[in-house]
């Protein structure tokens, strides 16, 4: 399978890329890691006349601490998230989760920004960014603006990113002391999308939950923030009863599509189970 013909552009700066996007318009697509876009082009689900390759913009790669914020360039690949001492120390959820994404070769190409901007609810970073309370930096012809992950995912393949904008950076609050996190992803095989996935970040104050954020992967038209499940934990002791009510609240918002990974009932039940496991694992790390 060979993609349809296109013209190839390789900007060296974000400004150059934004200008190209502005002049080429709706016929252009941004190329990040290419592991969603190129397969879609081979199948003719996407037929852009122009590809703007972001891979040569070195300013879009890298991870650095900026006070209590960790700033991740949108073109940082999954294997570089895994290898990052900053993330290992300050946002270990991304290290744990990236190991569950695709396979070693694909993780050398697939980027955190591409995974988010694609708007696919089956991708893992959308739910992770909801659980992490991430902020996205979008660059356009009029400069930069920021959008919270909570406000970014609007529908399947639909995001708050305008046609003339590029996602340049993901800003994540560094974990405060006694924060625990976990990502649980049920998948049939290496490289598969999640049947259901749950990302949990929580912080304990004594025996009670002081902070909880929960994101769900691939059980709705977008990644879902399970706000009622968070509310079922916050201020309560972390015990079987509160964990179960959080799992039930998460299952109540699931709206998965039937497919070869399972029917609605199965996927919803598995989302509940991923939530239970991720809460317990996160709590064990929050001590």
């Amino acid at each position, binding site marked *: 399978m*060979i993609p349809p013909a296109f013209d190839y552009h390789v900007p060296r700066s974000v400004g150059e890329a934004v200008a190209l996007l502005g002049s080429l318009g709706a016929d252009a697509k941004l190329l990040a890691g290419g*592991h969603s876009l190129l397969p879609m082009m*081979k199948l003719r689900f996407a037929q852009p006349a122009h590809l703007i390759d972001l*891979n040569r913009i070195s300013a879009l790669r890298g991870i650095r601490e900026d006070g209590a914020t960790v700033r991740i360039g949108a073109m940082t690949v999954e294997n570089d998230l895994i290898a990052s001492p900053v993330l290992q120390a300050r946002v270990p959820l991304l290290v744990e989760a990236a190991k569950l994404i695709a*396979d*070693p*070769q694909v993780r*050398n*190409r697939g980027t955190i920004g591409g995974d988010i901007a694609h708007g696919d609810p089956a991708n893992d970073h959308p739910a992770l960014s909801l659980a992490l309370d991430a902020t996205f930096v979008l660059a356009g012809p009029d400069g930069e603006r920021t959008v919270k992950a909570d406000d970014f995912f609007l529908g399947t393949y639909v995001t708050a990113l305008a046609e003339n904008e590029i996602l340049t950076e993901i800003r994540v609050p560094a974990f405060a002391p006694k924060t625990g996190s976990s990502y649980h992803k049920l998948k049939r095989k290496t490289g598969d999308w999640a049947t259901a996935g749950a990302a949990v970040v929580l912080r304990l104050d004594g025996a009670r939950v002081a902070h909880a954020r929960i994101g769900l992967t691939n059980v709705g038209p977008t990644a879902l923030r399970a706000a009622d499940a968070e509310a079922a934990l916050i201020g309560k002791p972390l015990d079987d009863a509160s964990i179960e009510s959080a799992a039930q609240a998460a299952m109540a918002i699931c709206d998965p599509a039937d497919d070869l990974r399972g029917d609605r009932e199965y996927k919803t039940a598995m989302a509940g189970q991923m939530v239970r496991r991720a809460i317990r694992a996160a709590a064990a790390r929050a001590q």
Partner: protein
Amino acid sequence: MAKKMISVKVNGRTHEEAVEPRTLLVHFLREKLNLTGAHIGCETSHCGACTVDVDGRSVKGCTHLAVQCDGSEVLTVEGLAQGGVLHAVQEGFYKEHGLQCGFCTPGMLMRAYRFLQENPNPTEEEIRAGMSGNLCRCTGYQNIVKAVQYAAARLQQTAKEAA
């Protein structure tokens, strides 16, 4: 759709070629350079038969554009053996019978080659995780794991002798 000139070093030799932007790396290697070691398997980045090394990282040649390799160094299975002597990973697959039909083998060898540089002394579990982007439909993987273990031991022995 204008062709682009690229300069790419493959197995130590620089090639200057005009390519259509849509040309995939695996097609460029096979059809322009006649390097047919990297195989076209699933074409959807799942099977790993097209795995090659680009700038020191394993990638799947079916989901990488040749035009993106301008200025890059590529290593394919044809570049593994040196002076008629098999590389340790090739010797391992031969000695441990790490293949049956052989279709997946070039990708397995190239991934094993890079994996053992990332992790020279891996556990069995780490080998299985490190090789998880390559599918084999014949062997059941057991002998592939043994082949990688063989190569790891061989490479460590060579390193010791050189030290």
